[in-house]
C-alpha cells in the first residue's frame, strides 16, 4: 500500500498559499467597497474594454453636448426674443401706418407722428444690435462688433458658426442680421420711408410705405421662424441628450460600478472562510502521532 506522506514544510506552504488566495480576493473586494469601482486594471475586464471605453466616451461627449446645448439655447432664445420684439414694433408701425393712411387724420397729425416712426426705427436698431454675453446676436460670425451702424448698414458677417449638440448634429448658433433685417426688404429703410411719408403729411405716401412695412414684418416673422426651427432642434437634442444621459448612467453603473450588496456579502462570506481556514490549518498542523507517545 502506498503511504501518503504529509511533509510539514510542504503542508505549511500549501496552507499559506490557500490563505493567500482568500486574502487576495478579500483585498480586491475591499478596494471595490472603498472605491465603488469594479475594475481599475485592464486585465480585470479583459474583453470588455471596447464596451467600457465606448460607454465612458459617449458619457463624456454627452456632457460636452449638454454644456453646448445650454449655451446655444440661451443664444437662440435671445435671438427669438429680439426678433419677436422687432415684429411687435413693426406691427405697431403698421397699425400706425393704417391709421395715418386713412382720412381720419389730418396732414398735421401725420407730420406730428413722424417722430414716433423715428423712435420705432431706433427701437428696432437697438433690438438688431442686442448682445448676449458680449456677443452681438445678429452679427453672424463677426459677433465681437456691432451688427448694424446707426445708418442701418450691416457690419456683421455671414453666420457659419455651428455648435455640436450631438454625435452627428451641429446647429447654427448665430443669425445673419443682414438676412433677418435686410433680406428682401430692408427693415430700417421701410421705417425710414414710413417716417419720410409721415413727415410729408401725405396720406397716399403713408399708404405706399405700408407695403414695405408689411414686407418687413413678414421677413422678420420668417427669420423668427427659422430661429424657432433651430430652437426646436436644440430642444429635441436636449430631450434626446437627457434620455441618453440617464440610459448611459444606468449602463455605466451596471457595467463599471461595484454593487455594494454583492461586495459586502462576498466579503462577509470570505471572512468566515478565512477564519475557518485558519482554524483548520492550525488543527491539521498541530495533531501528530508524537503527541500520543509516552
Amino acid at each position, binding site marked *: 500500500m502506498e*503511504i*501518503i*506522506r*504529509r*511533509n*510539514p*514544510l*510542504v503542508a*505549511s*506552504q*500549501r496552507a499559506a*498559499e490557500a490563505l493567500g488566495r482568500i486574502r487576495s480576493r478579500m483585498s480586491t473586494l475591499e478596494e471595490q467597497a472603498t*472605491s465603488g*469601482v469594479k*475594475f*481599475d*486594471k*485592464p*486585465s*480585470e*475586464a*479583459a*474583453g470588455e*474594454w*471596447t464596451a467600457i*471605453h*465606448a460607454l*465612458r*466616451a459617449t458619457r*463624456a*461627449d454627452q*456632457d*460636452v*453636448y449638454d*454644456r*453646448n446645448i445650454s*449655451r*446655444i439655447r440661451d443664444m437662440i432664445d435671445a435671438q427669438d426674443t429680439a426678433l419677436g420684439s422687432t415684429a411687435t414694433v413693426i406691427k405697431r408701425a403698421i397699425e400706425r401706418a393704417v391709421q395715418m393712411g386713412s382720412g381720419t387724420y389730418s396732414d398735421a397729425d401725420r407730420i406730428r407722428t413722424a417722430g414716433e416712426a423715428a423712435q420705432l426705427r431706433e427701437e428696432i436698431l437697438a433690438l438688431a444690435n442686442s448682445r448676449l454675453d458680449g456677443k452681438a446676436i445678429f452679427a*453672424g*460670425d*463677426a*459677433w*465681437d462688433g456691432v451688427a448694424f451702424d446707426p445708418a442701418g448698414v450691416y457690419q456683421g*458677417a455671414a*453666420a*457659419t*458658426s*455651428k*455648435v*455640436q449638440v450631438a454625435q452627428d448634429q*451641429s446647429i447654427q*448658433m*448665430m443669425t445673419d442680421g443682414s438676412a433677418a433685417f435686410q433680406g428682401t426688404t430692408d427693415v430700417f429703410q421701410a421705417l425710414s420711408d414710413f417716417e419720410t411719408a409721415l413727415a410729408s403729411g401725405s396720406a397716399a405716401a403713408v399708404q405706399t410705405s405700408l407695403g414695405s412695412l408689411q414686407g418687413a414684418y413678414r421677413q422678420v416673422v420668417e427669420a423668427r421662424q427659422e430661429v424657432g426651427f433651430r430652437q426646436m432642434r436644440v430642444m429635441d437634442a436636449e430631450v434626446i441628450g437627457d434620455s441618453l444621459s440617464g440610459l448611459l448612467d444606468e449602463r455605466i453603473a451596471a457595467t*463599471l460600478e461595484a454593487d455594494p450588496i454583492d461586495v459586502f456579502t462576498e466579503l462577509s462570506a470570505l471572512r468566515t472562510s478565512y477564519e475557518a481556514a485558519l482554524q483548520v490549518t492550525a488543527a491539521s498542523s498541530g495533531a*501528530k*502521532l*508524537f503527541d500520543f*507517545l509516552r
Partner: protein
Amino acid sequence: MSLFDNLRTGYTGLRAASAGIRVTTQNVTNASTPGFTRRTLEQSVRPPVQTRGGLWVGAGVQVDRIGRAANPMLFNRVLLSGGRAGMANAAQGALSSAENLFETTNGMGLRESIDGFFDSLASATADPGDFGRRQEVLVAAGRMTSTVRTVGQGLNQAIAEEDDALAAQFDVINADLAEVADLNRQIIEAAGVTTPSDLADRRDQIITRLSDKIGASAHIEADGSATVLIGGHAAVSDVTARTINAVFSPTAPPQITISVGQGVADITQEVEGEVGGRIAAREVLTSWLGDLDALATGIRTEMNTRHAAGFTAGGTAGGALFTTPPTGSSAAGISVAITDVDDLAFASANTGLPGDQGNLASLIAGGTAAVLGGKSFGAATTDLTSLVASDTRKWQIESGSADAAAADAEQVFSNFTGVDLDQEAVELVRYQAAFQAAAKVIQVTDDMLGDLMSIIR
C-alpha cells in the same frame, strides 16, 4: 554456535535499531528543512555462519547503507513545473505592474485623456474665440500628452527594469552552475567512501533554484553526478560548468547565450524560469510601447496637418500643435507645441472673425478619422487597452495554472521524498521495540552465561 555468538548476534540487532533511531532522528529534525530528502535505513540479514556440527545459523542483522528517498523522474517534474511557474510568475508580475499605467480607478486613463482633448474641441464650437474655451483646449491637450507621456515613460522604465533584473540574474546563475559542478565532483569522489546524501540534497536544491531562475532539467548519471540541461544544452556536465550570459543591445532585444566550445549558442527562445518570464514580459512591453509610439506619432502627424490648414486668432497660419522627439520613443516625449491660446488655429480663413471655426471642425474630425490602421485614435487606444488586458490576463491565467502544476508536482515529489512526522513516529516506535528486543536477547544470553558460570563455581 556458542552463547558468545548469540551475544554478538544480539549486538548486531542493537546496532541496527540504534542506527534506525538515528536515521529517524535525522528525518524528524529536518522535517521542515528545505531540500531535505527523507533518509531510509537499508538493512539485511548477515551471512549465516556454519557451526562445528555443520549447521548454518543466522548471524544477526547488518546495516547496508543509509539511503536517500530520491526519485529522478519526480525531481524532473518539479524542475519542469518550477521553471514554467517561475517564467509565468515573472511575466505576470511585470505585466500586472505595467498594466496599471493604462487605467486608473477614477476612469482617467489613456482613452479618457484622448477623448477629453477632442471633447474640449467640441466644447469650443460654442464659442471658438472665447479665451476660456481655448484655454480648456490647451489644458486638455496638455493632459492628453501628459498621460501618453506618463504611459510611454512608464513602459520604457518597465523595459529598462526588466533588463536590469535580467542582467542581475547571471552572476547568481553562473555561481550556481559552478557550485553544482563542484558538488558533482565531491559526490563522485565520496561515492566510494560513503553515501553522499547531504551533498546530493544540496545539489538538487541548487538545481531546483536554477530551474526557477532559468528553467532546467537534470539527468542523474551512474557515478551520482547530475547533468544539468538548460535550453537544450548541458550547462553542467560531470564536473564542468558552462557560462550563461545576457547580451544587451540598444536596437535589439536581449539575447541569452551559453558558452559552447570556443563560441556561444543562442538559447533565448528556449529558456524558462524567471529569465524566460522577463524575456517574455519585455517582448510584450515592447509591443505595447510600439503601439503607443504609433499612437503618439499618429496624433502628432494628423493633428499637426489639420492644425496647419487653419488660421490663428491673430490671422497667421497654424503651426505645429504637438511635438515628439526626433529619436527614441514618441510616446515618452510627446508634448503640446503651443502655449498661447491665440495660436490655436480654429479659423478656416484669415478673416479674424471670432465665429470662424471652419478649421475647428476639421480638428474635431481628426478624432474620428481612420488614421491608425484604419482606426481612430480612440478606437486604436481601446484596442491597445484590450491588448494590454488580454496579454496580462493570459499570463495571469498561465501563472495560476503553472503554480497549481508546480504545487502538484511538489506535492507528489514530497509524498515520495518528504518526511512525514507520523510515519517517523511509527518508525521510532518500531526501532525502539527492536532495540528493546535485542537488548532482551543479550540479557537472556547473559543470564544463560551466568547460569553456566555458577555451575563452575
